[in-house]
């Protein structure tokens, strides 16, 4: 198989004396959808934030498309990058947050246009057209001029997905994208993510939506206490888990 798009090797992270990640290994190939499952406090979100260097890692490496994230490889050593250089690497890695984090002072359209225009230097007119296209894809073209506060949670999250897609990322990270939503709004966000997955976007998704994991994921990773407990295709891992921790978790979630 070809070189994976995302390759994490022995990623460790501690806050003070508390170890949150105790050496995570993970490979995601181009076009794959990987779901991270596990109890809260397992370190799933922290790991995701390490992938685009929102958190600095204490040890290990995260490679995206052959580049060590947050570092430059020279003479067999990893040199820490400046914040500006990390910003360059993040262009290719989209992220969708639990709390949406749309820019509150800008309309939906302006939120989507911001990255292409300010970061990539795309002319405003061109960026506007692309943005309207993207908003249309997430079903919100008619709300282009609404401010985040005027949108429902589900709509905000769909705009946030469009904002990430506007950067034409190689990899999309979803950090519990439906956990802050009212139950009746979860579906519309999952639908957009499902379409994205079907179109071949490479995605790493931290989620508690077992249905989405079962349907859209190529691989499911179960994490607990800062470590990967078990990995497998959703059909296997969700129905016949091998480890006791996984069994317990699934029994509680699916009950």
């Amino acid at each position, binding site marked *: 198989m070809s070189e994976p798009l995302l390759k994490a090797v022995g990623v460790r992270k501690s806050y003070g004396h508390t170890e949150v990640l105790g050496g995570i290994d993970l490979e995601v190939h181009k076009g794959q959808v990987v779901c991270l499952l596990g109890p809260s406090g397992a370190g799933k979100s922290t790991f995701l934030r390490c992938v685009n260097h929102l958190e600095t890692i204490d040890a290990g490496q995260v490679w995206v498309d052959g580049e060590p994230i947050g570092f430059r490889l020279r003479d067999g050593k990893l040199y820490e990058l400046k914040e500006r250089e990390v910003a360059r690497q993040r262009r290719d890695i989209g992220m969708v947050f639990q709390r949406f984090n*749309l*820019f*509150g002072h800008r309309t939906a359209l302006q939120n989507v246009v911001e990255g292409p225009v300010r970061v990539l230097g795309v002319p405003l007119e061109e960026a506007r057209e692309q943005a309207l296209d993207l908003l249309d894809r997430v079903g919100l073209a008619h709300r282009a001029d609404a401010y985040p506060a005027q949108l429902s949670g589900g709509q905000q999250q769909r705009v946030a997905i469009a904002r990430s897609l506007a950067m034409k990322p190689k990899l999309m990270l979803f950090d519990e994208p439906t956990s802050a939503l009212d139950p009746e709004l979860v579906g519309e966000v999952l639908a957009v993510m499902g379409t994205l997955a079907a179109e071949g976007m490479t995605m790493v998704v931290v989620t508690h939506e077992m249905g989405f994991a079962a349907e859209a994921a190529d691989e499911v990773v179960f994490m607990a206490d800062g470590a990967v407990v078990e990995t497998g295709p959703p059909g296997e891992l969700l129905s016949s888990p091998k480890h006791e921790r996984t069994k317990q978790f699934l029994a509680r979630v699916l009950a």
Partner: protein
Amino acid sequence: MAEARRSTTEPLPIVRRKHWGRWISAAIILVLLILLGIALGNAQIQWDSVPEFLWYRVMAVGLLNTVLLAVIAQGSAIVIGIVIALLRRSANPVARWFAAGYIWLFRGLPVLLQILIWYNLALVFEFISIPLPFGGYLLHEQTNVLITAFTAALLGLALNESAYMAEIVRAGLNSVDSGQTEAAKSIGMSPGATLRRVVLPQAMRVIIPPTGNDFINMLKGTSMASVIGVTELIHAANNISSNNLLVMETLLAAAVWYMVVVTVAGVGQHYLERAFDSEDRSRSAFSRAAKALRTAPLVRSERV
């Protein structure tokens, strides 16, 4: 008692409470105001000379200096305040300590004392010079010449206010959720762009109201410059009264001007806040300040 307990279906008239307490307190306030008016009428004040003093040339100079001092001092304080606030939030511990020390010092000392220190700087430093590395000077001037009374007042007022501004800006920056910064980072924005495009615009809503308050305070604080002989409103009033001995009349003339500039500033603050609170949050801070100016009734043109 029996009647009160019996419910009925026919409509009954409603008798409102009389609020006697309100009538009584209103009457007391009015009587006190009338008495105060009578007292003032009996006071030995030449009321008719007050409007005259308003338009004295030295009063105009005083008004100009008061406004100039306040505007320049507040403007510099905002710029310095933003820098200190950023240092205060810096990852560099030395920068943080420096900023905390700066705020501690310039907020802690009385403004009057700071003005006096700047004014008397020549006593300890005869010259102020910035030497160039290979001989010669970029700046080499007698302190007396460089720091005039106006400059000393400006330094005292601006540096004191900058410490307050630093805290206001810091509160504003802290009010913006960290998720906004993370979202900006996640689309590859540089730290500078994140601050300018995402954090500061949203911090403005928290920053502007207390800044307006501080500016109104600053307008009055300029009166301390009179102590070192800057011709601002108080000094101008004293100037006139030292000739004609109409102390109270000239002070009242100064008071009128203070109320005028403070009222103008208050109205300006109202429109500035409204502009920054409006739906159209996409514009730059500058264009919104311009919008505030346009919508203010004093300068509003017919077309609008």
